[in-house]
């Protein structure tokens, strides 16, 4: 309005000899056009801010507003899932294409509610809190695209994290109804609790064609290496309990077993170990005197003594993570969070994110059969290694286990690394905790090579205007047989370098004294530099040594003419 008013007032000056009637007509027309342009511009350039503020109020309503989709009984069912699927056979890489950022684009299907013909939903729980967290984390990430045509990976909004709450056949039918399903190509499903009684399959039982599965609890027989992603079973305690990071070191107990649903055969063996090793072992179980519920999940008992869980995990060096009916256990997450080294007893289990994480540095894997030898196996591990494992365990939790966001984005990064392997994250990036990243030194020239003299070296001489000393340097250095090239960097903008034959040039104002290093302010400046650099690096990267390299026969009582470098130190 303000802009319009301005134009109105300026009108006469702009259109001087126009009739008032016409003038008003044009001015109105102009204003309309201008307003329209402004509005369009706003719409064009800030569409998200405008829409989203409006949308949050609409969308925030409820999951119950999701559209209802009826599945006909005869609706097609996907195939069971092909064990031979690999990225080059079951994944359409053309959808990802060349991408200068080397980042895959992930599309999330909008939430729908699938029901069968009788109106019974396919899932007893619907969208779980965890799956919602996962999807919102992905949609907030760099991976996300809202453009289905540009997507490389598709994530259904059908929650299959827990197979127990699903109707297998109907869920499969729902997958097949997804508009871009196309035999499950480039679709990623997340599942943490696979299988069901009595035999507990180690992968999701829902038929899923060629879809990739990010599953918790894969065994070596169901895991399609390089195709599926093995993920952790999320522990709700991650979000609810804050365990401060503890310094690595010895703990009150050596081994702690805190799981409550341990099979009696294994509990028997653990009890025998406890008898043999006494106090070093703490063998906890659920508290019988407490009622079920959230409170009881946070308590463990041993002979009437009550312990807080998961806090007690921080009191032990090693913590048992034994398989249950399923291979993947949420306890693994709690144990890592506590900085306790997991002892994993789950034969054929594919450890979470094992494609990129080096579990040998964070855990001890013992065959179930050797449970009884656990104590002696662990005793043989040196203290320093236990400490490294404790630190590593905690780091794995923080980076990859601590939230559904961490789990989801790690999964996507692993798939991303497969599609752009030349831009993949390195072993160090995946496995080194920040403290190691800071402290470690990795030379870009890491291959132990002793280069031959053949290519020689390039001398780079920096000079300002002390031409005489420059000449002296040039004369001396050009005698060196391995000199390949000499480069003089003239660092004086006020003066051009001496031309022609350098050797004939005489410099009257040059002084022969190397005065700089004697100057007190010079030293102070250099000290300041060192402090500044150290603060930028965040640490002092320089190391002090007490040795100096000399030729083998340096200053030895030996004929000078037989020495390779007789002139060194003979100034």
């Amino acid at each position, binding site marked *: 309005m303000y802009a319009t008013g301005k134009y109105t007032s300026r009108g006469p000056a702009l259109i001087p*000899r126009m009739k008032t009637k016409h003038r008003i007509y044009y001015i109105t027309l102009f204003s309309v056009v201008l307003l329209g342009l402004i509005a369009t511009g706003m719409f064009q350039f800030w569409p998200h801010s405008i829409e989203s503020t409006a949308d949050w109020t609409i969308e925030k309503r409820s999951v119950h507003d999701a559209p209802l989709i009826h599945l006909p009984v005869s609706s097609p069912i996907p195939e069971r899932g092909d064990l031979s699927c690999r990225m080059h056979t079951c994944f359409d890489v053309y959808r990802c294409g060349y991408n200068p950022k080397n980042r895959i684009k992930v599309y999330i299907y909008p939430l729908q509610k699938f029901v069968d013909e009788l109106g019974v939903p396919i899932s007893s729980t619907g969208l779980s809190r965890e799956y919602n967290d996962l999807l919102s984390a992905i949609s907030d990430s760099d991976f996300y695209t809202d453009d289905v045509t540009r997507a490389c990976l598709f994530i259904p*909004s059908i929650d299959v994290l827990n197979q127990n709450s699903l109707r297998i056949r109907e869920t499969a039918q729902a997958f097949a109804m997804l508009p871009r399903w196309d035999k499950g190509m480039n679709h990623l499903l997340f599942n943490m609790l696979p299988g069901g009684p009595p035999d507990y399959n180690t992968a999701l039982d829902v038929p899923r064609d060629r879809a990739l599965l990010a599953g918790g609890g894969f065994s070596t027989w169901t895991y399609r290496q390089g195709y599926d992603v093995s993920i952790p079973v999320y522990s709700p305690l991650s979000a609810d309990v804050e365990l401060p990071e503890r310094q690595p070191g010895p703990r009150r107990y050596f081994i702690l077993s805190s799981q*409550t649903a341990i099979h009696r055969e294994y509990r028997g063996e653990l009890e025998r170990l406890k008898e043999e090793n006494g106090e070093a072992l703490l063998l906890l179980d659920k508290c019988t005197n407490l009622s079920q519920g959230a409170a009881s999940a946070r308590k463990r008992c041993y002979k009437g003594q009550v312990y807080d869980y998961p806090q007690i995990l921080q009191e032990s060096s090693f913590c048992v993570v034994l398989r249950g009916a399923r291979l993947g256990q949420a306890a693994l997450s709690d144990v890592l969070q506590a900085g306790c080294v997991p002892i994993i007893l789950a034969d054929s289990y594919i450890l979470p994110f094992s494609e990129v994480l080096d579990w040998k540095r964070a855990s001890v894997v013992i065959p179930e059969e050797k449970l009884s030898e656990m104590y002696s196996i662990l005793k043989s591990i*040196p203290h320093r290694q236990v400490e490294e494992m404790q630190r590593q365990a905690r780091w794995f939790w923080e980076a990859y286990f601590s939230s559904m966001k961490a789990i989801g984005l790690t999964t996507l990064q692993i798939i991303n690394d497969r599609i752009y392997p030349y831009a993949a994250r390195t072993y160090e990036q995946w496995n080194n905790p920040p403290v190691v990243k800071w402290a470690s030194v990795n030379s870009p*020239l890491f*291959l132990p*090579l002793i280069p031959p003299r053949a290519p020689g070296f390039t001398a780079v001489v920096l000079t300002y205007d002390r031409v005489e000393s420059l000449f002296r340097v040039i004369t001396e250095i050009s005698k060196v047989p391995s000199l390949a090239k000499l480069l003089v960097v003239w660092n004086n903008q006020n003066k051009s370098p001496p031309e022609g034959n350098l050797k004939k040039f005489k410099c009257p104002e040059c002084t022969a004294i190397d005065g700089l290093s004697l100057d007190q302010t010079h030293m102070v400046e250099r000290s300041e530099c060192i402090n500044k650099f150290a603060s930028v690096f965040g640490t002092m990267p320089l190391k002090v040594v007490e040795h100096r390299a000399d030729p*083998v026969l340096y200053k030895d009582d030996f004929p000078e003419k037989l020495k390779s470098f007789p002139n060194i130190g003979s100034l």
Partner: protein
Amino acid sequence: MQAKKRYLILLSAGASLVLLFYLGGVELPAARSRHDRSRHGYRPDQPWPHFSDPLQPLLAWDHTDTEEYNLHVSPRQKRDVNTSVYKGKRCRMDSCFDFGLCQRNGFKVYVYPQQKGEKISESYQNILSTIEGSRFYTSDPGQACLFVLSLDTLDRDQLSPQYVHNLKTKIQNLPLWNDGRNHLIFNLYSGTWPDYTEDLGFDIGQAMLAKASISTENFRANFDVSIPLFSKEHPRTGGDRGFLKYNSIPPFRKYMLVFKGKRYLTGIGSDTRNALYHVHNAEDVVLLTTCKHGKDWQKHKDARCDKDNAEYDKYDYKEMLHNSTFCLVPRGRRLGSFRFLEALQAACVPVMLSNGWALPFSEIIDWNTAAVIGDERLLLQIPTTVRSIHQDKILSLRQQTQFLWEAYFSSVEKIVLTTLEIIQDRVQEHGSRSSLMWNSHPGGLFTLPQYSAYLGDFPFFYATLGIKPLPKFTAVIHAVSPLVSQSQPILKLLVSVGKSQYCAQIVVLWNCDKPLPAKHRWPATSVPVIVIEGENKVMSSRFLPYDTIVTDAVLSLDEDTVLSTTEVDFAFTVWQSFPERIVGYPARSHFWDSNKERWGYTSKWTNDYSMVLTGAAIYHRYYHHLYTNYLPTSLKSMVDQLANCEDILMNFLVSAVTKLPPIKVTQKKQYKETMMGQVGVSINLKTFPNLLFSSGSSRASRWADPDHFAQRQTCMNKFASWFGAMPLVHSQMRLDPVLFKDQVSILRKKYRDIERL
């Protein structure tokens, strides 16, 4: 005038309106449709909404606690079911391997005796003799954990002359076959024209495969081992080093990407090579194919053949290989090709174009650090992809090719030992190598997990982990002569070493036939002195990994070594900077004697050295473990019989591991050459009155013995032949204290005693 302006204004207004519709018109309908859909709550092009209603958690709080259903199936039964169900293509260590056989005697490998009349190819013979010469070998099948056939299974191409017939029956008749359980079968070629299947043509039962060109579909993860395809000429031991002699920065070479090879006009594996010409630009991307191979290539010849063949002949393969940044490794008939190892050795970063190939040793090698894994489907993107790789990354990829080549591929021996070590790691799960041990220098074959699974216990990973070795050493004094006088050098040595601020303890290894002297005869020191009586009094026992050595550093000493506390202190501070190398005082050198065509040993005063005697040297205690467990009995017993050369062998070992020379530090007293008249420069004895090895001790006589010197020459050559190459490296550098012999006051010098005579 007025009309003109009016038209002008009208025109501009019209233009603005058009603009308005252009901008708005595209957007508005979309926005409208969005609103339409939003009425149904169906918004596909929106980020995931933030739902306000309380959602159910994945697990009820008490869910895990009530997993009672878990309790009725016995886990033991469950394990038994697994082992009986998963056979054949689904074999895994858990189901097809008997760990029990390995528990009794450790990881021992049995090779079937060779049967008369059975032809064995040279390559397979190399494999078998490598196993027989390795520390894993056992000749007793009762002790074995792993069995290797003496029947040649390398070439299972029926059309090949090497093909062994009736293998099926021959194998079934082996009494120890046991359906292939705990057997390892080596194979390089399987299947034949036209489909080249991965079937070996006989029932392998529950045996593991160590196979080249294996596909991910057939590869049984953590059960089979994918090995590289190697040629008949591949050396049995040693092997050529990588071609990279120095790093150039920027790392670009003349060509960006090259390939030269056959083109298959029809059949399996032809697609990719047939399409290469699309990417060829005859400048920095040179991809050449020839149709000329096989008998009847003319029959299948296509329109491009003549042109391709002509272009092919213009370039020299070797020249291209050595002058290219990247080398394309497309699949051949089978997934693997010789191009792979060739590129690796040439420091030409392999660009893999072989979809579904389980890359060699992919179980342990992180190939992303040394190769570019391309996708055959995206061939046309390959040039863009390799051009996008940053030069820092190229520098790193190239160095890694050289590391991997020398660590695992340069000889048949390395390929076979790597295969065996991978399997051993599976068998001893809690004592296995981490990925870092396999993928960084010096590699898994030199990093034995039986010593420790902790990276910080090895001398190689301090920098990577950002940690330092323990600032203490253990002195190990090798005593061979009886204690008769209180002025014997060993007693002085004990005192001066014990005074070092870095000394944690002194171990005296009593390898003398006379009984141990009484406790009171040892001088009093501030550090504990532990006397170990050598059981068989052999030379190698000085390098045994004694449990009493708890420090990372070992100061190895002869009983007659003369060292001052200052010298020891200085050498130790130097070692802290070079924990993977030998740091010591007297140095020796090797040379190639071209007249005798053998290696020579010299103790003359030269301007370089390649060995530091272990009579006075500091090194990491891991080398005790490596000396004892890595080296073959043949070499160790040679040392013991001669009572000589143990120091040479240790230097060979450490240089083979580090690829670097040892480090000589300066010492106070000049060391006199006792091998007078043997070699080189004559030394005036009067110039060197202070001898490191004082006369009179039994050791000195050992050094004066002319046989002693000749033995050392023999040792060198024997060792070099076992290592397959000369691992020693020359150095011209000696490390001195910073102000050593500088013209400053001696009082300002920390290690002033070293200069004083």
